[in-house]
């Protein structure tokens, strides 16, 4: 019985020691990896913002183009008339 208790304590001690993160690690992830991950997340956030902005612009362009297409059934404006010769005073 006594042996069993010692063995149990030893197992618990080993488990406690095994669960401790190595030096320089927080919660199992190193600080460098964490910082790198944070940077990547921030970059992704920036990229996402850019994608949103591009999407807004795309929608705007699409709507403008659609408005032009919708006007397609209206008469096309005449091309400008050829410019007349300069008016020259002869006499």
């Amino acid at each position, binding site marked *: 019985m006594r042996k069993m208790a010692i063995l149990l304590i030893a197992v618990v001690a080993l488990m406690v020691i095994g669960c401790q993160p190595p030096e320089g690690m927080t919660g199992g992830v190193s600080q460098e990896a964490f910082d790198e991950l944070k940077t990547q997340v921030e970059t992704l956030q920036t990229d996402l913002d850019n994608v949103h902005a591009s999407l807004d612009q795309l929608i705007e362009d699409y709507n403008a183009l659609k408005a032009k297409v919708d006007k397609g059934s209206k008469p096309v404006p005449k091309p400008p008339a050829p410019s007349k010769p300069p*008016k020259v*005073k002869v006499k």
Partner: protein
Amino acid sequence: MKKLLGLTLAFAALLIMVGCDGEIALVAPANFTIAAATNEVDVVLDWDAVTEEVDGYYLYFNTAAIGTLTTAGYTHVDPQETGTYYVTAYLDEDESDPSTTESTAPIIADNITLAEINATGNSGLGWSRTDGSATTYTMGDATNAALIDFYFSDWAVGHAGTYEFYTPDLVETDPGVTWPMSGTWNSCSFTEVLADPFDDVTVLPASGYYNHTEVTATSAAYGVYTGNDYFGMVEVKSINTTTGQIEVRVAFQPVQGLRIIEH
């Protein structure tokens, strides 16, 4: 016999006296001409001096005597009206037959249709330098070039643009011309719309002539100055934008360089 001889001599003397008592016909002045002075409003009259004995000359304008002259030649200063001139020679109470009659009266032609250069009909108009008559011509035939004083165009393909009178020497660059064309075209110039209507214009402006002028309204009159120094006038009577045609009345002053257009 002696008596018969006396009667014969008396009869002969009577015949001679009767013959001498008859009028010696004065010779009419020859080579009577009229021309415009350099100021374009005076009329210069000239004729050959009669070589027989004469006291002078009577000058007539519209059949009324306007001058008694002792030498050949006269300038009718700024008459402001047109008409016919002739001259006679006189000696004492005797007067010769008149010279030839010369006229400054413009030649009027009415109800002329001009078509825009892409419309159906003739676009060009020319005045005869011989009799002042007006004739329309197609601009599609460059062999007419020497006969055309001006033409009618909207300076575009089709005939829906702004109508104008143009100097013919621009026609080869007219966008409405879609056919091969090459010719020696006359030049011409035009005033803007004159202040007075066609029938009230007596003397055309001395200046303000351009190589083309816009046809803006009916009942508008325009002065025309041809490249070889003749003056004319055009009245636009109607404009039909559907057919591309206008109806005009024209006047032509047959005396070269004379601006008087009273009619």
